[in-house]
């Protein structure tokens, strides 16, 4: 089976941009660059299939700063191959353009069975790329998967649903987006994987390698246009207790609650 996993690299949301210039790239170090959390869940989904029935897993990264770092990590986790897709002209804040690039990447990769992605891009909070890609490829898909099971005809997939869970069956050639469930909790990298990642040669494909015209994928081509991006200044003040022995911390909390006249009981 051939699986393609699309991952994105983001500036970890642990990096707080409150009160600082949101666009100050100098504040971001390599350590702050991480694989988008649910994309890592998608890698895990692919590796589970690789473990159980053998699969060639190709990780592809289009979006983010120094995607090479994310791709090396994907290989260190156990992916077979990695491809970096980069072009200065790319405007990937529009999920429509991102999905368009993904389509071309899949065409160049050639044969594939399953396409896996995360459920959301945590840094831009875009949820649209998986559904857009499935629609462009015109293949069956399930979004927000929580578990997958191989069956004769393909997969049986349970996905998140308001008020419970829904189970559907899909053929093997399909697209699945993977959520933050127990089934998809990502594994750690291994020593063997890290060595493989060191040796791995990761090709870089540009827009022209994919047969894309710049005018199709640059900012002018976007139909989702960003007008502004500003910090949300949280007015709420948090009484933060981070020092002291556990007992002192609890005492501090209770004293402050008393001072603020916060009622602790329901009656």
């Amino acid at each position, binding site marked *: 089976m051939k699986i393609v996993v699309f991952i994105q690299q983001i500036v970890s949301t642990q990096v707080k941009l409150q009160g600082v210039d*949101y666009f100050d790239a100098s504040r971001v170090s390599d350590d702050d660059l991480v694989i988008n959390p649910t994309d890592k869940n998608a890698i895990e989904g692919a590796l589970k299939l690789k473990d159980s029935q053998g699969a060639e897993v190709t990780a592809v990264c289009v979006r983010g700063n120094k995607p090479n770092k994310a791709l090396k990590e994907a290989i260190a986790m156990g992916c077979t191959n990695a491809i970096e897709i980069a072009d200065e002209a790319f405007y990937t804040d529009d999920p429509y353009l991102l999905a368009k690039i993904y389509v071309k990447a899949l065409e160049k990769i050639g044969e594939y069975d399953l396409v896996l992605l995360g459920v959301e891009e945590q840094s831009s909070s875009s949820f649209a790329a998986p559904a857009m890609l499935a629609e462009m490829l015109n293949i069956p898909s399930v979004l927000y998967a929580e578990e997958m099971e191989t069956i004769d005809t393909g997969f049986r997939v349970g996905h998140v649903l308001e008020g419970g869970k829904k189970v559907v069956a899909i053929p093997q050639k399909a697209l699945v987006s993977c959520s933050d469930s127990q089934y998809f909790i990502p594994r750690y990298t291994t020593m063997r994987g890290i060595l493989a990642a060191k040796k791995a040669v990761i090709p870089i494909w540009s827009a022209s390698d994919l047969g894309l015209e710049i005018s199709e994928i640059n900012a002018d081509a976007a139909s989702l*246009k960003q007008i502004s991006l500003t910090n949300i200044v949280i007015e709420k003040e948090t009484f933060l207790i981070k020092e002291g022995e556990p007992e002192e911390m609890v005492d501090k909390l209770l004293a402050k609650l008393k001072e603020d006249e916060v009622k602790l009981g329901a009656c």
Partner: protein
Amino acid sequence: MKTLVFIQIRDDKIEENTLGILNKIKTSISGAKIIGALLGKDLKDEWIQELGLHGVQQVVTVDLPDLEFYLSATYSKTMMEIINQVNPKFVVAAGTVYGEDLIPRLAVKNASSCAQRIVDFTIEGDSLHFHTPVRDDQAMKITQVVGDIIFATSRPGAFFVDENPSGATPEIMSISVAFNDADKLVKHIEIKKAERTVNLKDAKVIVAAGRGVAGKENFQIIRELADLLGGQIGATRACTDVHWIEETYEIGQTGQSVSPDLYIAAGISGAPQHMSGVKAKTLIVINTDEGAPIINYADYAIIGDMHTILPILKEKLK
């Protein structure tokens, strides 16, 4: 502005966030013509009446056995049929699992992008400006969608439902759509409905735990604390997913919505899907990670291990 709203039904009722969108459109787009797209099997007249009350002027119904359950292909094909017939300028759905699946597909069928998870929009000239919180609600992004038809989803919990709606009976237009085998490649197997045996809506105090609780047995202390405070327990989907606790206690977009006076959140990171179900007067957080997004919402936070903090808290409260 002709606006088409994808109507979602849950538990035999019109889903809240859909009603919220109707209210938002009614109050912020003057002269809007609101059309509701109601798809399903055995559609009820009472839903149509309720839509009228909430400001929908026309309801397009498609009542077919194949639409009993949401599936991407059948639903997006049907919505395209409706779009072609009514020619809307703006197409919007509540950003539930189904809404977020549907809207991007419709956008692609119309060769354009969409705005997802909006919490507000404003009218600027003849276009709409969408407000979406990004990076775990650290920043607000304002966007505009360029295209003949504008597609968007709202973030659950973003818009209020009109408590005293006063609209009239809507006009009804009924259409039919034919499906082929290619539309049925994804097969519905079942919906496992979470049993809602405990109602958390009216709880004044909730002690909730997330993945940090690290096991079924550790819910004991959560229960004890809740009992001591005369409250209820709650949990994130991460906990109900692995059956550390019954599904009835799930709080958030796919669980219950709560609005207690006091919410104690231990080992919860604060994902938007969880937080959208929590409206607490006072939020106390216990988390080992100072960078967890939930700290931003907290009134009081202890950065520490819940397994040591909670037993001490319990002893002191006794």
